[in-house]
């Protein structure tokens, strides 16, 4: 019990003194995750909107696959990416394995289906509502997408934050393709796993507090956004 208590105190000290190791890990985690979310949105917003407004053979299958990939196990995503990036894999010559770039790709793979699926659902509902009005103005199909994306902006930000939550909490994929190398690819989740197994609970706890705080902040941001949007009658 005393050991646990001292671990909490030590974790608090690390946080309050902005311990260099802890800060480096938090910053790398944020860099990797925010980049992955940005890329996921860059792909997911237009692709989801396209799936919402377009009608073509095989669309239902693509929607099914995207929805299924929302629950893609991170370790499986990491394993396939590892096979692609390993020296003997098709992308081996790029030398990306065990770099932050590989971790960004892994998290992008996990975030994109979430953003895409949520975008498709939101835009499809909105398109149904706007359909007659838009068609009467001669606006349909791909031409309607920018207007729909803009009007759904508050709901889409919620989707992006859900993707951020998924990426920030993920450990399996980044561990496989990043290798958890100290000062290179060590992020919060992989460090927590490693340090816990080593018995170094203070650093693990400190990072755990940061993760929980991030999660709280994300949820607060979502609630605040939705509240503002509702107040402004924008949802």
């Amino acid at each position, binding site marked *: 019990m005393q050991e646990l208590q001292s671990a909490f105190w030590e974790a608090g000290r690390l946080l309050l003194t902005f311990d260099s190791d802890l800060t480096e890990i938090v910053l790398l985690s944020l860099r990797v995750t925010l980049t992955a979310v940005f890329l996921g949105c860059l792909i997911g917003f237009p692709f989801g909107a396209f799936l919402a407004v377009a009608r073509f053979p095989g669309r239902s299958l693509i929607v099914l696959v995207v929805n299924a990939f929302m629950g893609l196990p991170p370790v499986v995503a990491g394993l396939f990416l590892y096979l692609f990036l390993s020296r003997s894999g098709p992308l081996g010559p790029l030398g990306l394995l065990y770099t932050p770039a590989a971790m960004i790709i892994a998290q992008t793979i996990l975030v994109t289906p979430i953003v895409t699926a949520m975008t498709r659902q939101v835009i499809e509902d909105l398109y149904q509502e*706007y359909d007659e009005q838009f*068609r009467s*103005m001669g606006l349909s199909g791909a031409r309607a997408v920018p*207007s729909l994306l803009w*009007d759904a902006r508050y709901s889409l930000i919620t989707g992006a934050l859900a993707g951020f939550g998924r990426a920030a909490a993920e450990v399996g994929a980044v561990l496989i393709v990043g290798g958890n190398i100290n000062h290179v690819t060590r992020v919060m989740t992989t460090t927590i796993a490693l340090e816990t197994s080593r018995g170094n609970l203070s650093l693990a706890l400190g990072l755990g507090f940061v993760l929980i705080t991030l999660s709280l902040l994300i949820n607060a941001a979502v609630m605040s956004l939705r509240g503002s949007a509702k107040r*402004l009658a924008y949802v």
Partner: protein
Amino acid sequence: MSAERDFTGLEAAGRVAPGALLPVTLADVCFAVNGTDLLRGLSLTIAPGSRTVIMGPNGAGKSLLLRILQGLIQPTRGQLTWRRAWGEARGTEGDTAGSATDKHTSGAPPVSIVLQRPVLLRRSVAANLTHALRVLRVPRRDRAARLEELLTLGNLQDRRGQPARSLSGGEQQRLATVRALAGNPEMLLLDEPTASLDPQATQAIEALIQRSHGQGTKIVMVTHDLGQARRIADEVVFMANGRIVETAPAEIFFSQPQSNEARAYLSGHLVI
């Protein structure tokens, strides 16, 4: 939609501006859903100029007729013939000065519709109108001035920054109406635009309708409000059970309705 009929006679008689969209002729137009006929053998010519009011009980097919005219749905059978196809160039030299044809914004659909429940974007009042101007391809240099015109027309200057969906019902309908006028359409379709509005808001919408008619826009409006129909209509199309039962100049329709259905409707009996 094709432009097959020859209306040169009307042009020569000065009743139709050269290059104009109207008249539009419906010949035996039917619309069915899952084998059920909702519109049956509609034959009608909608001429330019006059204000046409479509009346009839619920389920008569009035809103469907408007949607067919707007091109939102296609007839299952029959033919809809515009004098000029929608995509054709218009505003040829010699057009009647001041007609809607002259002012019609190139690239915008020549027919515009106002729905009973306006669908407003999740944006401010001004952004709703700016969006319409952009979509209707109003040149960028003209948009700011046109926006001011529309805000003034709808008496919405003080509401420009307000979220459109937070407006009152009457204001929302005014916004929807001026948005429909953004591209200077040749024909304005209105589907019970004042159905849930109070007299003051109704008056404001009617003023907008009369004003755009005065500027040369053909008005086709669906209404259940007999008083409104009397105020606005030049001619009445009466529908029941998916058919056109009677078409007549307004004066004649209201004083001497020819069909039993119209007589019953005007006298306040239930028409089922």
